[in-house]
């Protein structure tokens, strides 16, 4: 009996000893394993966010160039008419007497009408508001947000004691159309200056690729994956070049509308509750889309079916 107890005690001691031996493994080998797995921490200032976005742009362009090999990169500014020769002919005929011409004339008049305090829109924008469309939207470092052209127009009004205009259509879009028209042919070169800008860009990118609405569609589903396919009587336009022709005169609207107006309409079509005009999500989406269209020229306002 006594021998049995001693034997059991010995076995238990050996087990405990074995367990303690495992825990006292050489610290140096544990450290070196950690050192292998640890990656050098890159200071945030050293990360080139513009370079990261430029890689995305190249991949995006490459996708559309492969999908539509008969279209040059620069032609994507024309939307669906870059990939559909038949409708392109009809569109070019419409462009000879563009339906947005009156809106440009109205836009000039609104733009040049002074505010109550005597100042005007020209005082708010560099180069007096001419030839600046290609700089929008931009990431404002001071306020840490994306500023679209339409938002800038209303900020100008409010800073001069005027009430903001309604977004989407109407007077504000007429002003935007004049400013776009004055910038025709200039190249989009939007920047991603810092980490916050990159976050806004990624937020817009996430929106673009996220399925939403009862119909469970993302922007990418229609305008990337199945771009060029027919949806009822229309062909789905490629996402590259979407912002260049804004604001757009759509025959379905019978007037000009901003890119934000189009976003809301698209969301309604897929049974997603549209977000507010100039919401952070929509501004970030416009930032993402315009970055993907860097290198293309301003050709707004434009007309579409």
């Amino acid at each position: 009996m006594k021998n049995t107890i001693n034997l059991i005690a010995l076995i238990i001691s050996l087990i405990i000893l074995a367990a303690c031996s495992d825990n006292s493994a050489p610290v140096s080998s544990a450290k070196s394993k950690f050192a292998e797995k640890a990656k050098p921490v890159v200071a945030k200032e050293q990360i080139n966010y513009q370079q990261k976005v430029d890689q995305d742009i190249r991949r995006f362009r490459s996708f559309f160039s492969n999908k539509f090999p008969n279209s040059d990169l620069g032609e994507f500014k024309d939307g669906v008419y870059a990939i559909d020769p038949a409708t392109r002919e009809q569109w070019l005929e419409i462009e000879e007497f563009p339906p947005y011409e009156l809106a440009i004339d109205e836009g000039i008049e609104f733009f040049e009408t002074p505010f109550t305090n005597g100042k005007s829109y020209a005082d708010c924008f560099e180069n007096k508001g001419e030839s600046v469309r290609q700089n929008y939207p931009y990431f404002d470092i001071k306020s840490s947000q994306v500023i679209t052209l339409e938002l800038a127009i209303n900020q100008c009004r409010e800073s001069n004691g005027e009430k903001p205009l309604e977004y989407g259509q109407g007077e504000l879009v007429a002003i935007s159309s004049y400013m776009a028209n004055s910038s025709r042919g200039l190249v989009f070169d939007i920047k991603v200056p810092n980490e916050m800008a990159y976050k806004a860009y990624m937020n817009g990118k996430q929106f673009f690729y996220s399925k939403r609405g009862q119909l469970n569609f993302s922007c990418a589903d229609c305008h990337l994956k199945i771009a060029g396919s027919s949806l009822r009587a229309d062909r789905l336009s490629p996402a590259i070049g979407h912002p260049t022709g804004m604001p757009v005169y759509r025959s379905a609207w019978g007037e000009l509308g901003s890119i934000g107006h189009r976003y809301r309409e698209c969301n309604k079509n897929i049974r997603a509750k549209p977000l507010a005009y100039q919401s952070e999500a929509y501004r970030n989406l416009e930032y993402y889309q315009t970055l993907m269209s860097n290198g293309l020229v301003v050709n707004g306002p434009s007309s579409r079916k």
Partner: protein
Amino acid sequence: MNKIKIGLLVIGLVGSVVWEATPYELIKKAEMIRLKAAEVGFEWSTTSTLIAEAKQAAKDGNYELAEKLAAEAIKQAENSLKQAEFAAVNWQDSEPK
């Protein structure tokens, strides 16, 4: 017999109150989930329509319809939240490689 009648009347009154409460509870639940979906930017346009229709049906005394519409609104609102959760994790799968 009178006691039986009074008893049945009481049961009927209590039952009608309980019956009325159900669609309103469902409508309230649908509204709560709809708001959560709206907060994350994934509200469906169909949900608020269903809730409005449920409210109208309840107002008109058509509690069976109100309950049915509210239940559908809850289902759609829950699906929109699931959609948001899925998108948050999987959105990059659609990106061209």
